């Protein structure tokens, strides 16, 4: 007797699932466990396996089709010549191949909840009371999407004190959400010898009489210069247009008062290297004093961050809103260096793949690797 393979439900949200590809054809011999179909939702791709040994005698779906959960996808017969039940159905049954016959108990529950048979996905050849109870618990009795509370969604957690987010935290939240929702971010990194930068930084510091190590500031300044020469990295996507910013507003992450800030050097290309370092220093001090103005913590068009001296070998930075490139500096590899003349170091970059590609980004990083 022919046996059916139905499209299973994989989560509460998807009542229809896309058939990605078919791994079978009619007449093919299959064994239990063989992959028949590859299906996909917005969140996962999964295989549908045969539950029986036998022969494919009917395929009721095709690649690219969106199919309701519970639909019979494949019939498996004991012989190649067996006819699928559809061949023995009435024309009405054939034109509604996915219409299950409800059990008596299911009919009562459909009346009780005011549901139509077609509303409820079924897990076997008949619509059962279990199908209806499961549907109602997932969707809710009034047919609206049930709003799950945190415990239903995630499980049981200990009680917690509720605190308001501070301004810097709200800023971080907005930034992370933008990064998650808007750009098509991708990441790559290069390994380079930081010794050349270290030497350049020492010479600069000595000649300018600087108090602070200018290494990271000079790297950020180089990025400003690269942004001026390569406007595409100082751009973003807005609707379907590229917005090439006319100025380079360099965002630079700092930690002050145990909070993370991205301070913004506006129109950074107007400065020479020393002027840029002085401006950056001023913003850093303002961060500690908590006197930064709104335009000094927003509006970055490109950004630089570092986890230097924290033993980090790589970190994947979060793109500030409306930027397409943020360079992350890490020097944790120094710990592995045996040759003291080499300082292995990493420049990684998160970039918006809607506007930049790996080639352009790697080129920028390699230019940045040399002072």
């Amino acid at each position, binding site marked *: 007797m022919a046996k059916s393979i139905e499209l299973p439900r994989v989560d509460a949200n998807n009542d229809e699932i896309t058939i990605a590809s078919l791994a079978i054809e009619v007449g093919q011999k299959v064994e239990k466990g063989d992959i028949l179909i590859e299906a996909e939702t917005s969140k996962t791709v999964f295989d549908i396996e045969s539950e029986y040994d036998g022969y494919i005698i009917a395929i009721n779906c095709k690649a690219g089709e969106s199919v309701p959960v519970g639909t019979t996808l494949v019939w498996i017969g004991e012989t190649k010549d067996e006819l699928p039940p559809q061949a023995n159905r009435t024309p009405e049954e054939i034109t509604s191949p996915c219409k299950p016959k409800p059990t008596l108990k299911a009919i009562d529950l459909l009346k009780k909840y005011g549901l139509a048979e077609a509303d409820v996905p079924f897990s076997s050849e008949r619509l059962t009371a279990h199908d209806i109870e499961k549907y109602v618990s997932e969707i809710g009795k009034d047919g609206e999407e049930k709003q799950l509370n945190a415990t239903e969604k995630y499980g049981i957690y200990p009680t917690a004190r509720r605190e308001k987010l501070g301004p810097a935290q709200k800023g971080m939240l907005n930034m992370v959400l933008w990064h998650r929702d808007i750009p098509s971010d991708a990441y790559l990194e290069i390994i380079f010898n930081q010794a050349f930068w270290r030497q350049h930084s020492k010479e600069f510091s000595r000649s*300018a*009489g*600087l*108090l*602070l*190590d200018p290494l990271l500031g000079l790297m950020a300044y180089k990025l400003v210069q690269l942004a001026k020469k390569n406007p595409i990295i100082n751009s973003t996507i807005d609707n379907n247009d590229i917005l090439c910013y006319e100025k380079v507003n360099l965002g630079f992450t*700092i*930690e*002050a008062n145990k909070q993370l800030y991205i301070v913004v050097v506006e129109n950074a290309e107007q400065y020479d290297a020393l002027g840029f370092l*002085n*401006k950056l*220093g*001023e913003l*850093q*001090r303002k961060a*500690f*004093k908590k006197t930064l103005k709104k335009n000094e913590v927003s509006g970055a068009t490109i950004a630089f961050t570092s986890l230097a*001296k924290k033993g980090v070998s790589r970190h994947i930075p979060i793109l500030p809103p409306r930027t397409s490139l943020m360079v992350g500096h890490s020097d944790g590899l120094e710990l592995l260096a045996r040759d003291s003349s080499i300082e292995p170091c990493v420049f990684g970059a998160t970039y918006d793949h809607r506007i930049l590609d790996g080639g352009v980004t790697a080129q920028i990083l390699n230019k940045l690797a040399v002072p």
Partner: protein
Amino acid sequence: MSENLNKVKILVRNKVIELARENKIDAHDLKNDDIIPEKGFLDSGAIIQLIVWYEQQFNLEINDGEITIDNFGSINAMADYIFK
């Protein structure tokens, strides 16, 4: 004046020790003429905190261009700067 100078030096030195301790570093060996960034007791962030404290403690507003190793590189230099 020398008494005030010494007071400033003590205050600055104590602040350096306090900031270094936050990074689990003991800076009691710091001498008044040691170059602070070269001793490694304070990282860049802590040095900025030292400058911010200095401005607030002595009610000064320091221009960016004046934050140099000559003016703030040692306890002696920081004390001398106030009386310039």
